[in-house]
């Protein structure tokens, strides 16, 4: 135990290189004496440069935020030619949609599915990159590590359509495994249309696509551990497992905490595109999550107001989850997403 606390202190003293980028910021130089008029003139190019981005964010992030008012309306897209006009002309209904949501069996089912999938991801997906990183890190030859990483990063860059198509070809009813089984006189099987296994299939696809990518952060954290710590603990007689327990794992702690916070903050956002692509194959009972429910009710059936209400509730709880998870991280003595 003493080793691990020492290790943590040592790490703090020699700040990991990863944080360098942000600490160089430096405080702004003393500008108090220059009048604002002059400073505006001096920095006008800089401000102009940021404007296109800010404008895009205003239009596609802030205006839609205001557009959430349709959740308190009985929005009718056919009342006017233009969506903006339609919002202005639609009647207000107060919290009617929210009341309806509380009594909606499908909403609760979608929420249940969302949370189940989140828990599966947390238990089955989350540890995989950590284990993979420890495994790759145990190889000493740079060439082996580089090749392994190149291969493992690859699926992260594939689209969900492609990933699911690959899975379809491997595990689907006409896929390679079913094909091989039939050739040897067994019954074929179809993992892609089995509602009972669907949530595991999702997690499995996620592991295939993103576990390799998740390795990067952990490998970097491992690389920033001072080798002297290993050497010292080896001198003290710690074998490789004890070194992993007392040096390596404590070094991963802050990164793990950060990623856990992020993961919990996203608990209500589980694989929207991924599920949307597969929901017809297994039916909504097993696959409907909050995001796909919003999409289905709103976009497919035109229930914009009700879907927006579900979206708002999801957004608010998502925000609370991030803040809450961050609070817990702070209480645990970790930094979390933002500083205190």
């Amino acid at each position, binding site marked *: 135990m003493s080793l691990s606390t020492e290790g943590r202190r040592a790490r703090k003293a020699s700040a990991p290189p990863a944080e360098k980028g942000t600490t160089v910021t430096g405080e702004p130089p003393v500008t108090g004496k220059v009048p604002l008029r002059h400073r505006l003139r001096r920095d006008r190019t800089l401000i102009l440069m940021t404007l296109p*981005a800010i404008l895009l964010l205003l239009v596609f992030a802030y205006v*839609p935020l205001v*557009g959430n008012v349709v959740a308190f309306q009985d929005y009718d897209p056919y009342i006017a030619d233009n969506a903006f006009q339609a919002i202005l002309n639609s009647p207000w209904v107060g919290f009617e949609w929210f009341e309806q949501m509380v009594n909606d069996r499908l909403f609760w089912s979608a929420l249940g599915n969302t949370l189940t999938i989140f828990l599966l991801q947390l238990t089955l997906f989350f540890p995989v990159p950590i284990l993979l990183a420890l495994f790759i890190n145990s190889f000493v030859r740079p060439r082996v590590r580089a090749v392994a990483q190149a291969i493992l990063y690859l699926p992260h860059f594939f689209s969900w359509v492609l990933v699911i198509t690959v899975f379809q070809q491997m595990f689907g009813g006409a896929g390679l495994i079913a094909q091989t089984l039939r050739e040897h006189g067994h019954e074929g099987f179809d993992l892609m249309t089995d509602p009972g296994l669907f949530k595991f299939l999702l997690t499995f696809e996620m592991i*295939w696509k993103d576990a390799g990518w998740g390795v990067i952060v952990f490998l970097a954290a491992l690389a920033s551990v001072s080798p002297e710590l290993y050497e010292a603990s080896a001198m003290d007689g710690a074998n490789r497992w004890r070194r992993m327990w007392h040096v390596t794992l404590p070094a991963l702690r802050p990164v793990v905490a950060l990623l856990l916070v992020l993961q919990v903050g996203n608990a209500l956002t589980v694989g929207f595109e991924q599920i949307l692509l597969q929901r017809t194959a297994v039916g909504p009972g097993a696959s409907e999550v909050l995001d796909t429910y919003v999409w289905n009710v709103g*976009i497919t059936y035109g229930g914009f107001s009700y879907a927006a209400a579900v979206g708002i509730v999801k957004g608010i709880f998502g925000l609370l989850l991030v803040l809450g998870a961050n609070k817990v991280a702070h209480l645990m003595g970790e930094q979390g997403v933002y500083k205190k």
Partner: protein
Amino acid sequence: MTGVAGVKPGTRGRLRPVWEEEPTKAGLASKGVVLVLICLAVLFPLWVVVVTSLSSVKTITEAGGLVVIPRGVTFIAYQELLGGGQVTRATLVSICVTVVGTLFSMTVSIMCAYGLSRPGSVLHRPLLLTMLATMFFGAGLIPTYLVVQGLGLTDSYLALILPSALNVFNILVLRAFFMSTAQELIESARIDGAGDVRILWQIVMPLSRAVIAVITLFYAVGYWSAWFNASIYISDPKMLPLQNVMNQLVLKQERPTGLAQVINTGHLSPLAIQMAVMVLALIPVAVLSPFVQKHFKEGMLTGAVKG
């Protein structure tokens, strides 16, 4: 790659630090096997897809479906797909949207990142906060859809670019890099009379080539892989990008328009067509990402510790 650190000088060629135990032969071998299996889990499906797309009808029938061992390579599936028609169109749409979108995203992102990277500039705090805030709330699908509709962007290629043109996270990564490039260089350039545009173009950007390559790849992959925007904003089948067409052809098992005849006469296996579409979708990504690979770490980490 600091796995090598801790190697004593004078132990050339010896990668393992002196104090570490030598692994047993059996341990080393089993680790190797596991690593190979993990890598195969990624590569094998891709291999099958590529091989099947290059197989003739005969080979595919003999294999009873997907082909694992290649016999007689033929490019007929690609010839048919790229000889005009739905998939050719979709590929062109995807390429154009990716190129134009990436250029647009990079221009706006780099300008914005530089604009926010000079400490002490006026309005830099409020502008930065405006951006950061969007990382904490998402407006939601429905209002975003209504805004895109209200702007009249539906059924236009702009709907595939503008709503998802910016990734705040990417801008933060760029900004962090721009801030860490040598301030002395920038100051001396300013004293020599260079304006901000010139400093960005001639000093900051050449110094940040690595991160610019990474972010370009991120944006490009984003555009290339996108299908959702097209699925809700585009109703004209001629305007659909490759991912959406692949979705129709493979997951929904539809026949590509214009190719029914070749398939019905038995010259072309529908399976080979499906696989060829998948190869078209994966080629650019598989070819490009290894080049940028060595810079991933810096990009990911700068972003992870945001300021």
